[in-house]
């Protein structure tokens, strides 16, 4: 007799009650402490759930009678692989078959789907998705597994302790008793959800640590993956906004007659960020927008050029700033020192330039509530901001999070800028039709919210043995968090920690170390950009360290090693990359190697870059060897992909990308002048992952800041020059 038959019969008899649908699945609402942090409890959870007062329901896994396991992802999938990572954690503890697992995105709900590292807000960023979910998702899967085992035990009349689960089935070893998860789901759905579960010993992991295939691949190679642009709603119209050419300009007057006469244009409205054209489709909206006549009041608008900005910043480099770190007395030590080494760095504004331009679909319902479809990265903030515009409650803003065609920080706007715009357009048009707000590439490139421009000055003196005796790093630039909801949490004694991260956290053993910040104000809107402060601090500190090594006549790897006594994880990736990258091996003439090591978001990355310098200063980056320590490697293939992509993203800014201003207007507009890395510029990449049992940390950002200094150091090794400014167009 087949065990399937037993299960079906017994389960129907024992558990099906009238009025319950046979297809009812198992949806677990798990009670979890809101403040749970990774590391609270390792394998074996006993005793960690005592904060009963803070318990809130969560829902992350569903198992259907059809044997499908659906993982509800609370984080935005923007390419970093989080759907796969979250599902891996659930499936691991559930003992599901990987191919029976589907992933859907969670509805916006700060109570159930908050980022555990952010308190009561749902959102994705700071490379926190796996870090904050590691235990939460594992518990979700483990609880479901316990219930399935218990259901089988009751059906079979045996002790649950004697049962096992594997590959989507529960069985009693040595008996032939076996049932699929789908067959047990209904029965299990009637059981109590366990409050405490025992997690696997990592030694038993079958999925975590293995390169399981991504869950989003099929849809992304056959064109069926749905992005914001792809949403069609009945009666929907497309909106485009003409924005001011200079930041800080205000609308004086506009004439929409010609636009309204343009084919397919339905409405023209003034909205807070400009003039909105509402039309039948993209082409009609764009054609209509092109013939708008608008006068702007630019009396208070930004009117400077990039050079003037840097000139102002350079004068601040001469003045002491607010201290962000002070060990020993660097000022005193530098005052009397001989042969102080000094370098001034400058970093331009940068656009995120995700492949998918910004956009948002919004639809109003009869009760005034709205549905929104887009690649939402900060659902809770977006709900709040939209609710204010429309005069409704945040829970009346239902967000359907879609795949995002990249973000790199841009979609996590602290003011929900483009989401609010969609709501403003909807409001201006009276909410009568669904609206798809689209940004063109030009809108996206010129729309601000850039990585801010920064300058650094680093000065150092050396001991007689060549080690740094004193190091002073002054940083000048705008604050990302000033004026945002993040300001109080991310400012320490007047210092925006995102402006100095990577510099104030310098891992090297230097007795007199001082880091200072000047926070500037400009009307140019700025925002986090993949790896945030490290985008500039890693470059300045790691190229400067090479300058010191050269000054001391020492090998850059040895020089760092001697200073990393207090930073074993930095040292480990450095040693690994030096070994794998063939550090010290001879190279052909014109070729060079450079090294850099940096921690961001608690992940440690070191790189050795190989370059070739050709005639007239042209150069290529040929090969990059990466060593990364991100704790437990949940999916090694995704980690590799993020190292490849992350360093490629950073390499664009080394080679060519920059946003510049002329008379207050952004010069660049599209990929012909905001140029980015292309296939023929991509180096070979080799990634080595440090085996680790530490809690997992993020991999979306930490590769990005390391490539710049590795390449610059490699170029310096060939040319002997300093590279104090990005991009480096000529070696």
């Amino acid at each position, binding site marked *: 007799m087949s065990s399937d038959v037993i299960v079906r019969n017994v389960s129907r008899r024992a558990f099906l009650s009238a009025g319950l649908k046979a297809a009812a699945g198992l949806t677990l609402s798990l009670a979890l402490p809101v403040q749970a942090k990774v590391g609270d409890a390792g394998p074996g959870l006993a005793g960690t759930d005592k904060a009963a007062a803070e318990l809130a329901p969560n829902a992350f896994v569903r198992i259907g009678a059809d044997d499908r396991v659906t993982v509800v992802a609370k984080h935005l999938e923007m*390419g970093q692989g989080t759907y796969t990572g979250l599902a891996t954690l659930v499936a691991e503890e559930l003992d599901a078959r990987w191919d029976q697992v589907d992933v859907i995105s969670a509805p916006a709900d700060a109570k159930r789907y908050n980022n555990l590292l952010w308190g009561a807000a749902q959102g994705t960023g700071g490379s926190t998705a796996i870090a904050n979910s590691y235990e939460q998702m594992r518990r979700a899967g483990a609880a479901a597994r316990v219930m399935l085992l218990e259901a089988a035990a009751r059906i079979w009349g045996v002790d649950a302790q004697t049962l096992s689960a594997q590959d989507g089935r529960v069985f009693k070893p040595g008996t032939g008793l076996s049932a699929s998860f789908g067959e047990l789901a209904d029965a299990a759905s009637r059981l109590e959800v366990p409050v405490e579960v025992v997690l696997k010993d990592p030694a038993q992991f079958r999925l975590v640590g293995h390169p399981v295939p991504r869950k989003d691949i099929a849809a992304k190679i056959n064109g069926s993956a749905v992005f914001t642009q792809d949403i069609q709603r009945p009666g929907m119209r497309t909106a485009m906004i003409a924005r001011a050419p200079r930041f800080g300009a205000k609308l004086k007057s506009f004439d929409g007659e010609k636009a309204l006469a343009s084919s397919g244009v339905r409405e023209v409205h003034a909205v807070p960020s400009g003039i909105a054209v509402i039309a039948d*489709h993209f082409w009609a909206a764009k054609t209509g927008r092109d013939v708008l006549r608008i006068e702007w009041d630019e009396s208070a608008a930004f009117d400077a050029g990039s050079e003037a900005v840097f000139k102002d910043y350079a004068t601040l480099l001469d003045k002491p700033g607010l201290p962000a770190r002070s060990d020993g007395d660097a000022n005193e030590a530098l005052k009397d020192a001989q042969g102080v080494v000094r370098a001034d760095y400058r970093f331009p504004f940068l656009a995120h330039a*995700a492949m998918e331009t910004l956009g948002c679909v919004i639809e109003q319902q009869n009760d005034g509530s709205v549905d929104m479809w887009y690649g939402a990265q900060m659902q809770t903030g977006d709900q709040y901001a939209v609710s204010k515009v429309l005069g409704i409650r945040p829970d009346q803003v239902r967000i359907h999070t879609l795949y995002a065609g990249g973000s790199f920080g841009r979609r996590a706007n602290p003011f929900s800028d483009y989401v609010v715009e969609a709501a403003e357009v909807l409001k201006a048009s009276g909410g009568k039709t669904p609206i798809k707000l689209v940004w063109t590439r030009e809108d996206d490139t010129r729309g601000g919210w850039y990585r801010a421009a920064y300058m650094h000055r680093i000065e150092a003196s050396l001991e007689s043995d060549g080690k740094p005796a004193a190091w002073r790093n002054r940083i000048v630039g705008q604050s990302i968090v000033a004026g945002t909801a993040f300001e109080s949490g991310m400012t320490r004694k007047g210092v925006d920690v995102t402006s100095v991260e990577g510099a104030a956290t310098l891992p090297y053993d230097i007795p007199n170390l001082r880091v200072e910040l000047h926070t500037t104000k400009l009307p140019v809107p700025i925002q986090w950009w993949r790896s945030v402060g490290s985008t500039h601090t890693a470059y300045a500190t790691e190229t400067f360290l090479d300058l010191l090594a050269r000054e001391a006549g020492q090998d850059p790897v040895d020089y760092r090693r001697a200073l990393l006594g207090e930073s074993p994880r930095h040292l480990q990736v450095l040693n690994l990359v030096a070994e794998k990258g063939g550090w010290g091996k001879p190279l052909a003439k014109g070729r060079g190697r450079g090294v850099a090591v940096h921690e961001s978001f608690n992940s440690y990355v070191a790189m050795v870059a190989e370059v070739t310098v050709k005639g007239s200063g042209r150069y290529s980056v040929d090969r990059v060897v990466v060593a990364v320590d991100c704790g437990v490697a949940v999916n090694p*293939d995704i980690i590799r992909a993020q190292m490849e*992509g992350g360093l490629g993203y950073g390499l664009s800014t080394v080679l060519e990308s920059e946003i510049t201003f002329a008379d207050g207007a952004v010069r660049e507009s599209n990929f012909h002048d905001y140029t980015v890395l292309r*296939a023929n510029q991509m180096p070979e990449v080799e990634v080595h992952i440090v085996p680790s049992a530490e809690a997992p940390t993020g991999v979306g950002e930490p590769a990005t800041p390391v490539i710049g200094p590795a390449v610059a150091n490699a170029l310096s090794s060939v040319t002997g020059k300093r590279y104090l400014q990005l991009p480096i167009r000529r070696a």
Partner: protein
Amino acid sequence: MYELNINGASHRVDAPADMPLLWVLRDLLGLTGTKYGCGIAQCGACTVLIDGVAQRSCVLPVSAVGDGAITTIEGLDGKVGRAVQSAWEALSVPQCGFCQSGQILAATSLLTNNPTPSDAQIAEGMSGNICRCCTYVRIGKAVRKAADDLTQGAVR
């Protein structure tokens, strides 16, 4: 009124003459696998095949399409296309995925015209298509794999 031959079927569309094929596909016909990335022939997100050759649909007015056979990602079939898609899957190429329809069609066009490209020819041939997630390492390997699979008869 234009009559377009898309993925083997005939479609009649009422569109202004200057409307790029991209928006006809996306906004009038609901074929949203073809993406907008720049609108000025810089990024390749809008790549479609016309008579087997990669074209930028964002700068191709519908009036200039004529009776060419248009293939979008939704209709990609044939030996080369299937080889490219399966290599893409085997190497987990996509990250955000937004550029990938264009990448896959560009790769299909490349291998159709040159079944045995060198690595340098692959890098050059694919450099018209931007990937902001910088999946270029895997794109290169996947085109190589598709070429090898095709020459070794591993694809049906």
